[in-house]
């Protein structure tokens, strides 16, 4: 492997990692705060992508500039968060916070199944493609290989912004603190006046919107079709577990490992590319049973 190839693999890895992170971060947030492994995340991701493609297609058909696709991504993400995330938390999850965790998982699984069919009813079975956002930014040529600016530069930058922003939000804002407190102990949080219901609702909406944003960001790079969510969930789950419970930085680092692992696998030993996320997870957990950035939770005795 010469240096050029090495660098190419590096670029591909980073671009892919950025996408993986922006999809997995919402799941990490919801899991970190609510301890719910949100299977419906995959559907929210898919709906985010569909919405973006549809809205963009509609707006372009009216003759607007392709750059408008970017604000539409945000719009779609917010719509997903508010119109889907809100009701899911409010109507379903809220009723079962005091029930075993596996039930919460299954509620989201049921929602996932329902949303899969809803997507098909709304958008049909034919793949969608809407790449105006990506085309609007053009290409860069590196070592004779074309990369899209969108994937090579914009996505990594956005991922970084998300990382820093969320970190700041959770660690350094009051709302972030309230979220962390509620996470640890709902009742104790309520007894110091935190409206735990609202905190969870907001968190879930934000997490769902991030899922939608992941889909929106992915939408110009890929075909949008039934079943796309299922794939993403498994990958995001792997990221969440490898990262350590709810660790946003861990998720970023894991995404990077997965991205680089996959691209180097494609260059060196393509047959193993599919296995990369699982192998990384196995190896990381073997060395660090609490995940990359997790810390052992000792029981108070």
């Amino acid at each position: 492997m010469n240096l050029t190839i090495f660098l190419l693999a590096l670029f591909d890895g980073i671009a892919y990692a950025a996408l993986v992170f922006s999809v997995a971060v919402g799941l990490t947030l919801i899991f970190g705060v609510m301890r719910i492994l949100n299977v419906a995340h995959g559907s929210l991701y898919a709906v985010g992508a569909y919405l973006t493609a549809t809205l963009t297609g509609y707006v372009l058909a009216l003759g607007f500039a392709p750059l408008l696709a970017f604000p539409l991504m945000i719009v779609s993400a917010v719509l997903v968060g508010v119109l889907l995330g809100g009701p899911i938390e409010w109507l379903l999850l809220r009723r079962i916070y005091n029930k075993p965790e596996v039930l919460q998982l299954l509620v989201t699984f049921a929602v996932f199944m329902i949303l899969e069919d809803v997507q098909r009813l709304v958008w049909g079975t034919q793949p969608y493609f809407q790449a105006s956002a990506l085309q609007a930014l053009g290409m860069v040529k590196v070592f004779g290989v074309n990369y899209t600016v969108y994937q090579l530069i914009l996505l990594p930058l956005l991922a970084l912004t998300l990382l820093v922003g969320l970190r700041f939000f959770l660690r350094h804002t009051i709302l972030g603190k309230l979220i962390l407190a509620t996470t640890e102990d709902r009742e104790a949080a309520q007894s110091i006046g935190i409206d735990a219901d609202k905190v969870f609702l907001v968190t879930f909406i934000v997490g769902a919107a991030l899922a939608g944003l992941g889909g929106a960001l992915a939408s110009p790079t890929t075909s949008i079709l039934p079943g796309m969510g299922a794939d993403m969930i498994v990958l995001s789950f792997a990221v969440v577990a490898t990262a350590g419970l709810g660790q946003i930085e861990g998720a970023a680092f894991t995404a990077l490992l997965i991205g680089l692992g996959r691209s180097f696998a494609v260059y060196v030993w393509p047959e193993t590319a599919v296995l990369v996320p699982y192998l990384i997870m196995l190896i990381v957990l073997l060395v660090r049973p609490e995940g990359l950035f997790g810390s052992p939770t000792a029981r108070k005795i």
Partner: protein
Amino acid sequence: KPAELKVGITTFLTGPASVFGVPARDAAEIIVEKLNAEGGIGGVPVALSFIDEGAGAEALTTEFRRQVEGGAHAMMGAISSGNCQTLAPLAEDLQVLNLMWDCGTQQIFEQNDYKYVFRTQANATPEMLATVLYLLKVKPDFKTIAVVNQDYAWGRDSWQIFSAALKALKPDVEVVGEFFPKFGAADFSTEISRLQAMQPDVILSTSWGGDLDTFIQQAAQRGLMNTSTFVIPLAESSLERLGSTLPAGHIVGARGDHYFLHPDRRDDADFQEFMAAFREKTGAHAIYPVFHMSQALAALKAAYEKAIAAKGGEWPEEDEVIAAFEGLTFQGLGREVTIREDNQGIEAQLLGMSVQSGDYPFATLENIMIFDGEALTTPVGQESVEWVSKLTPEYAASVKVDTYEK
């Protein structure tokens, strides 16, 4: 004489393969509606019921059985070759007529003898062989090839046949890269970077559906399609969705002679009538599974009519219908298809070169060739890969082909 002829059809209504399954179902409904309006088969109306292959093997077999035991006269299964492998022996045990209407695996009849199971279209071998022949005809002196196929049975099998044929017919070609990204992969960026660095003359991909769309879109965006010729044997089913993305000059196949502008058939009244009806119902142009569905239904009709005729106008027993399939010839929306003694259908293969002519908001085909199916199909009793590997460069010239400039 039954009150209605009950036919059960398995097709993907959910999951990624519903890109094929749903248009096929729509086509079946259109065809049968027209058929029944014209008096059905031998005066008996046809009643369809559909089973979702996407619901998993258990639900599929259970429901398949339930329909058979509930009195279905004929079954049509399946799209996925895995499901064909499951349903074929089941149909045989249940002694029910089963038409494999879409699955491509060549193994079924090469490894087993079936009495009740027929395939009303070609299989992977003629499909790949025709593709190789077309490639050799239009781009005789390419040196290098890379493959990007889906990582599952079809992707692997089709590459095995294709590469065996290529090696036999043009031994000097070098395979510079083999990629099998996972089924349903959403991102091919890395593969594309790699391919750009390699610069193969030809890139083969037998992918379909969203995978193919994504691959083509990403390859086109990044200029890979300007430097390599793509051979995409299933791309006929993606043409409309790809719109203006697919550039001119790439080799497109259709898993048979299936094309909504079929050069032989485009002016036929029944063809045009169907295409109009299909567009009206679905808003899209017909793709190959629609043709496959038309062939399966045509086969059913032809067999029953043949059996009725043989019985002097009386309604035939099941055995008599089965017997009628021997050497049966029928025509769906493509050219005529014949059922061979091993129950395999002989079907012509159509390929062409993409062109953005401006007639449609998507690429159409030019330089179309239709290969005769007989010579492409593995002889009865032989094994495909073995047979293909023994072909010689002279064979290529011997296959009968019709070429259409426009």
